[in-house]
């Protein structure tokens, strides 16, 4: 097991802190890292795709799980896979797609580990039908503060605390996931334009056909009548007969597009108002009123940004803040207010996505709740951004909504309890299971989780 001292940040590259990083290759080594922790605790880290400070632990230990990357067994009869927590969803897709199986839930990047996906309880564009990631976890092995390994099954309180529990209940060592069958590795995609936010909401609400993946790329720079205009993309895994004859020979090939990585040094301000407006305009005009029946690779449809490795560096040294919130059905006015506020301030919001969320999972701190979710990234150096986001927090909390903790890098501890009603249960379980506070992260310190 290699050990070194490194400075770490989340994907947003803000608030770096230094910790001792352990890279275990076996479960026993992971247990050694946890039991041999210092007074400032330990937290597990995967591929560092959380935008905020969930997977860093200033002055303490961080267990980098990416070395535990074995796929143990794949049961093609029942559609389950048993794998280590450090396996990335990308690796799982490489292994599973050729066999005709796919992950039922993937977030907007496939470069997350299984452990990270459980700890953040990620969701995808198909949340309305498929729910979040932990709905498809059949069991997991959890390394707890005392060094013991527990098998955690759905329906138990420990499972509910760990699902979306931000790694604060223990270290997930391995998991059994159920899969969904697919006939091809392509998606049939329908895109349509919505001239304003009302139309986007209406179109997302309409259950058009059987296209479970649906999300709207919203133009937060548009003003006036076009405020909240969007390009909707819906899709589903393409059946075999939808493929052109030549592609039918290799229907399950997984070949994601890959661009050269973003350069290490990018001047701050590259992603500013001009580029945000330009990109949004190009996307909107390029989309066409309605386009149906297009075929896209799963990677291009579900994880478009993964084609550009290190895209977070494009924001420059100052980094960026990702804001993701959810409000319930009937709270469309809140969405309107937030969108109007961002558009009036001409905030250069990137990858702004509006989508519907279905029934929430059992996770106590899990983000998805039925209703709407809007997410966007903003350069951290934007003047007045801290205050603007604080106001959005208040608005979201007032509407009974919540802000995603796995992406958070800036929330106030005061607003948290209103957003997550099960927070008290979570704290109580941690106090019982981990009285010394072995599992700690910068996020847990900042928000007193």
């Amino acid at each position, binding site marked *: 097991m290699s050990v070194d001292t490194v*400075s770490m940040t989340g994907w947003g590259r803000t*608030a*770096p802190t230094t910790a001792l990083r352990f890279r275990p290759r076996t479960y026993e080594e992971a247990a050694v890292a946890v039991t041999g922790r210092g007074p400032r605790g330990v937290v597990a880290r995967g591929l560092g795709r959380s935008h905020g400070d969930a997977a860093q632990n200033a002055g303490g230990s961080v267990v980098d799980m990416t070395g535990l990357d074995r796929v143990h067994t794949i049961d093609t009869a029942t559609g389950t896979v048993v794998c280590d927590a450090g396996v990335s969803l990308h690796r799982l897709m490489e292994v599973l797609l050729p066999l005709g199986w796919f992950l039922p839930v993937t977030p907007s990047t496939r470069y997350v580990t299984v452990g990270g996906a459980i700890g953040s309880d990620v969701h995808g564009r198909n949340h309305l039908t498929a729910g979040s990631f932990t709905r498809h976890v059949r069991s997991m092995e959890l390394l707890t503060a005392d060094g013991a390994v527990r098998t955690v099954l759905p329906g138990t309180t420990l499972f509910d605390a760990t699902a979306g529990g931000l790694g604060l209940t223990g270290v997930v060592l391995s998991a059994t996931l159920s899969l969904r069958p697919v006939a091809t590795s392509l998606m049939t995609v329908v895109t349509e334009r919505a001239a304003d936010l009302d139309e986007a909401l209406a179109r997302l609400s309409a259950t058009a056909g059987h296209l479970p993946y649906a999300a709207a790329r919203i133009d937060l720079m548009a003003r006036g009548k076009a405020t909240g205009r969007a390009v909707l993309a819906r899709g589903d895994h393409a059946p075999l007969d939808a493929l052109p004859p030549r592609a039918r020979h290799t229907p399950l090939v997984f070949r994601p597009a890959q661009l050269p990585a973003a350069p290490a040094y990018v001047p701050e301000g590259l992603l500013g108002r001009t580029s945000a407006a330009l990109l949004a305009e190009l996307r909107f005009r390029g989309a066409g009123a309605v386009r149906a029946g297009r075929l896209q690779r799963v990677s291009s449809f579900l994880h478009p940004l993964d084609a550009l490795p290190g895209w977070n560096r494009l924001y420059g040294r100052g980094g960026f803040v990702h804001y993701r919130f959810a409000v319930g059905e009937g709270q469309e006015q809140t969405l309107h207010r937030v969108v109007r506020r961002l558009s009036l301030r001409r905030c250069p919001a990137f990858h702004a996505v509006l989508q519907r969320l279905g029934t929430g999972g059992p996770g106590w701190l899990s983000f998805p709740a039925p209703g709407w979710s809007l997410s966007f990234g903003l350069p951290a150096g934007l003047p007045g951004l801290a205050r603007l986001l604080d106001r959005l927090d208040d608005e979201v909390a007032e509407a009974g909504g919540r802000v995603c903790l796995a992406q958070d*890098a800036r929330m106030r501890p005061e607003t948290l309890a209103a957003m997550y009603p099960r927070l008290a249960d979570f704290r109580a379980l941690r106090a019982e299971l981990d009285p010394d506070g072995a599992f700690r992260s910068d996020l847990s310190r900042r928000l007193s989780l």
Partner: protein
Amino acid sequence: MKDAFGAPQSLLVLGGTSEIGLATARRLIARRTRTVRLAGRPSPALERAADELRELGADVRTVAFDALDSGSHEEVLGKVFSDGDIDMVLLAFGILGDQARDEEEPLSAVQVAQTNYTGAVSAGLVCAGALQAQGHGSLVVLSSVAGERARRADFIYGSSKAGLDAFAQGLGDALHGTGVHVMVVRPGFVRTRMTAGREETPLATTPGAVADAIVTGLRRRSETVWVPGALRVVMSALRHVPRPLFRRLPVR
């Protein structure tokens, strides 16, 4: 912990009655700061400062701290850090002295040097060690443009700040990669109690402006901050002015 914008949740001000220190504390309390420790010699002014910050909603406590008593720094500051993480230390103490008197009374000149330099070295090192152990935090050191090039009018103060500035820069480099961020703040003439009655130099500024620059510097994780920013250019030119000419400048 600091948030994505560098706003700390807990703040330790060394030199708890410093106007720049308090202006910074007020701005930070308006953001994320909930815990403030004001370290300074016990005095009614220190308590008043604490009360004022308390009214803004922070949990404020005063800590008896004497910059001249280097021997006590480890114990006094160690206790502050053992109570919980400190996200930001603002090293704000310093005295201007009285140049004319200090030149005649070497002992009072030594006091300026001991407060501004020796005291800051010992307190700075103690805080740096504690910040390094917690793996994060900012140490903000109030230097001065007076330290950039010694002037006839205040070279005793200037030389102490020059020492402090060099110390803080070196400390920043030493702590690079440990998660601790050291920021050197070089204000020009600041209108405070300390400078009351003195002749202003051009580009004079206020404690509020210095505080704003500190808050911005925290967000950017800057290593050097000039207040106002134009001083960076002015001083880099002044640094290269030949001595015979420098002596003749109207503002010395």
